[in-house]
């Protein structure tokens, strides 16, 4: 029973539940499912400076979403710590070979434990990978007005052309970066 709870879920459980969350937020309070808006809300709440983009009533527009992501952090603890999968991620043999070429051979946990360490963060490559990557995620999603959830799920489910452009763009850039850029920054 317990080992059943620790197993990762198949796509046909995961995907429909993601769709259900988006539908539920709309049904509960007419809320658009999208995580990256919270980055803006947090800036607006803590350090708006003199920037026009952060001058709005974040409580009325963003409080529900900040409460939602607080739940995501709690859910991440439940699913990623209490019910953590003890086995390596069941990626395809082709994916394993592709990542082994980067020197990554331990597929346990949610992130490669050899990569996401403070030690790696303090190297030039690690700093570029994590701080550079994080910066690009924040800058890019704010500019595009959405991320994998806001454009990829909400926008596409609502058949919005802008979201289709966004999804094609971030998948293409992500695919190129995973193959060409990531290998330059993974410490060996």
């Amino acid at each position, binding site marked *: 029973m317990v080992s059943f709870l620790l197993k990762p879920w198949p796509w046909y459980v995961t995907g429909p539940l993601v769709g259900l969350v988006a539908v539920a937020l709309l049904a509960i309070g007419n809320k658009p499912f999208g995580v990256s808006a919270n980055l803006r809300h947090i800036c607006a709440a803590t350090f708006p400076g003199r920037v026009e983009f952060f001058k709005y009533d974040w409580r009325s527009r963003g409080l529900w979403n900040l409460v939602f992501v607080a739940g995501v952090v709690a859910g991440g603890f439940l699913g990623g710590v209490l019910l953590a999968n003890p086995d390596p991620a069941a990626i395809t043999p082709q994916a394993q070979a592709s990542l082994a070429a980067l020197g990554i051979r331990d597929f346990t946990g949610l992130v490669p434990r050899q990569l996401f360490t403070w030690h790696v963060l303090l190297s030039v490559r690690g700093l570029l990978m994590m701080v550079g990557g994080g910066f690009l995620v924040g800058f*890019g999603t704010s500019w595009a007005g959405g991320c994998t959830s806001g454009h990829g799920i909400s926008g596409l489910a609502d058949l919005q052309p802008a979201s289709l452009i966004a999804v094609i763009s971030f998948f293409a850039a992500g695919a190129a970066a*995973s193959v060409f850029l990531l290998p330059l920054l993974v410490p060996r």
Partner: protein
Amino acid sequence: MTASPAVAPPPAQHRERLLGAYFCMGVLFGIVLTKGELASWFRIQEALRFKGPYLYEVFASALAVAAPGFALLKRRARALTGEPIVVPPKVLGSGVRYVAGSVLFGLGWALIGACPGPMFALLGAGVGVMSVVWVAALGGTWVYGWLRPSLPH
């Protein structure tokens, strides 16, 4: 996502209801992200390198639920809070923001193997350095806000 028109005047004395329901939905989504391995660096790289169908199957089945769900709800007049259900269209404009912004996001997504939802979930899952990635994302957001007047949209 909050699509543009920058500063709309807030409705007077808005008081959010059903905050507990949003928290519960967040908890569910956090569990889905971790148990469904959407917060898995390995799964993201597998998909971005086109070495496996998992992420694409998840996206397709999520949309198979969300698209009819949205269409149905837009015909139903009101949400539980009593608010009318409206999905605001994302203003296409020149489209530059959707291409340029998403390309930058895609680069970052591949480098850290996590998009914003998983970044929050991984904090809860105890990946300590994710807090630094997270602060960097806030920095990126802030710099965008600062440069916004001079960027094309």
